């Protein structure tokens, strides 16, 4: 595998903007952090420059606008709380709560769907388009390639959550009053404090999706079809949430990766209640360890023919 061959492989991936892969062509140097960084930046470009990713983020950003408008239109009509998504009663009092409402609405379906698409497609998509084998010709190493893809997936989780949160904040500020925020425990905190909590909640939500990225990546290494991997990952999210709704399955529910997702609402109490959030983070770490290593085992021992 000559350098010429390597740069040729990179060039053939120009469509997916892998030009930076040429950085890696100087032998086995990519052992270094710089090598990994180049690979990672490369993955980021690949993910975020795609039209598909932009459309997904756009959909996520429209969702809070939709919720905000609906809540605004309903505020005038006699509406006693209890129905509708969580936090609606608070949203009409303070636009900042639209961030939490939007995240609570997006977390069960929309966020995992977009993450499933990105993570599920990451390896399988490249296998399908035939770019994977060229990528592996470069001395980047499969392990590091997988790590770069996983990290890029995490960055996408952050971006997706941020898209929801920022759009919700803008919509909330435009449609509802801002100011002091009433927490779920009835305590009132200032706007600056509340913004900090919003950032914290968004961070927790993004990290909550880490387990799903690992699962998506693993599924992605199993198949050569991007569509199959995406569908399997998104289908798994839905199946797991259905299982989580059965009280009869109490014994396994705490181990389902979606089980503690909505525990972020415990951070909106005074003082914050971390129990559920910590369990969530621990669970995500366990899923990342298991499915990350499974993806590694599969990807590094797999015969890449496509």
């Amino acid at each position, binding site marked *: 595998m000559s350098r010429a061959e390597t740069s040729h492989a990179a060039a053939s991936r120009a469509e997916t903007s892998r030009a930076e892969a040429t950085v890696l062509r100087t032998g086995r140097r990519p052992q270094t952090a710089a090598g990994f960084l180049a690979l990672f930046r490369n993955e980021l470009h690949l993910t975020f420059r795609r039209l598909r990713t932009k459309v997904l983020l756009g959909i996520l950003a429209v969702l809070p606008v939709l919720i905000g408008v609906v809540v605004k239109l309903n505020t005038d009509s006699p509406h006693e709380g209890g129905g509708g998504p969580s936090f609606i009663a608070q949203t009409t009092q303070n636009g900042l709560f639209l961030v939490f409402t939007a995240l609570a609405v997006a977390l069960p379906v929309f966020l995992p769907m977009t993450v499933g698409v990105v993570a599920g497609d990451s390896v399988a998509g490249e296998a399908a388009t035939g770019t994977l084998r060229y990528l592996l010709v470069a001395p980047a190493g499969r392990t590091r390639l997988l790590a770069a893809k996983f990290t890029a997936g995490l960055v996408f989780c952050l971006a997706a959550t941020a898209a929801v949160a920022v759009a919700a904040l803008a919509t909330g500020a435009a449609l509802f009053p801002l100011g002091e925020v009433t*927490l779920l425990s*009835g305590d009132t905190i200032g706007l600056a404090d509340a913004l900090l909590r919003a950032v914290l909640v968004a961070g927790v939500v993004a990290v909550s999706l880490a387990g799903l990225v690992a699962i998506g990546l693993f599924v992605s290494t199993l198949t050569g079809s991007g569509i199959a991997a995406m569908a399997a990952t998104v289908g798994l999210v839905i199946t797991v949430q259905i299982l989580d709704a059965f009280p009869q399955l109490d014994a396994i529910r705490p181990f389902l990766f979606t089980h503690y997702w909505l525990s972020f609402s415990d951070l909106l109490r005074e003082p914050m209640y971390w129990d559920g959030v910590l369990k969530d983070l621990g669970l995500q770490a366990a899923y990342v360890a298991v499915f990350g290593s499974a993806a*590694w085992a599969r990807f590094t*021992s797999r015969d890449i023919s496509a």
Partner: protein
Amino acid sequence: MTNETVTGDGLDGGVPYRPRRRVLVRAGVPLAVAAVIAAGVGLVPALAADSPPDLPSLTAEQLVAKALGSQTQALSGTVSVTTDLGLPTQLLSGAAGGIGAAAGHGGQDAGSSADPQTKLLGLLGGDRTLRVAVDGPLRQRVDIMENMAGYTVVRNGDQSWAWDSSTNSAVHLTGAAGDRHPKAPLSELPTTPQEAARQFLAASAGTTSVTVAGTANVAGQKAYQLSVKPTQSGSTVAEVRIAVAADNGVPLAVAVKSTDGSTVLDVRFTDVSFAAPAAKTFDFTVPKGAKVTEKKADEVAKDSAAKDGAAAADDAKAHGNENVNVIGEGWTAVVTAQLPGGQVEVPKGDGKHGGRGSVNPQGMIKSLGKPVDGGTLIGTKVVNVLLTDDGRVFAGAVTLPVLQHAAGVN
């Protein structure tokens, strides 16, 4: 793990490529990771629940006295409440709606969702986490941490607030409430281990064997285990276990076991501190935009005095039915009442939308229960309710034969 795994491996290394073996070895890695995590999850609680502490032995009397004589005035902590009564869920939500509606009769309709009665009934179904803070007899706070919502009851002197975040509504109770009222929401169901233990200890005279059953660690505190068992036959309660802190006699956990061996109620501190909570814990200011229902203490006292007599007979209670009697005593006491026949007008659902429908209470019970000699039985793990064919209701934590005997069947 190292870069041995890069491409070209096996092509130019001169080593025969043995994919199958490598697949097997690699596949072992995630399995090992999963095994380590599973072992960790299984072992850590086992290690945390270390051996029971060594404490000087006490007699049952000494321990009960220690619990009753506890001088601890201030504490705060997290309480987990696990209930598994085996109640039909429709019945639970129906009863909650009925009680909420009944509460609405007394005062204004708005804000009934913040009424403590409705919320506390919700504690009967499933698991809840509460945060509790107490500083003396006049200042208490309970936060029920609901899914994506919160419910708070605060008492500070003669001011009491109940706040429901999901509807942004509050109930404000003012007046020189005696010990009874603002506490009443907490005394009907044991929301704190203290309250629960006190109720069980008070009910134990004569009909009960009380023993000390070893020691345990609860919420990081050394505690004695008090075992309370009914000596009367016919009770569905097998044992009540109360963990009493060795240091200060504060009850830290209460577990109720039924005769079929399952734990029906488990109230325990998962975290507790005996330092006085910060004063601001008990300050409650009305959140912006909240609907506030004002109530005077004496008005509420009157309202619920009518209700208190009929703890078990929800429907009778909701309509101020006076025909409530208690047969027997101790663990095998049976509450009996005449159930109104025919249709009863009740507000639909949670009573908030003003829709009214009619419910036939006898019909409802019959549809939920199973026919037995002399009537219809609704059986749960602890409480059994018998509706006789002539419309009387018998309820108690007793077996069916005891109910039938009380009803004069066979």
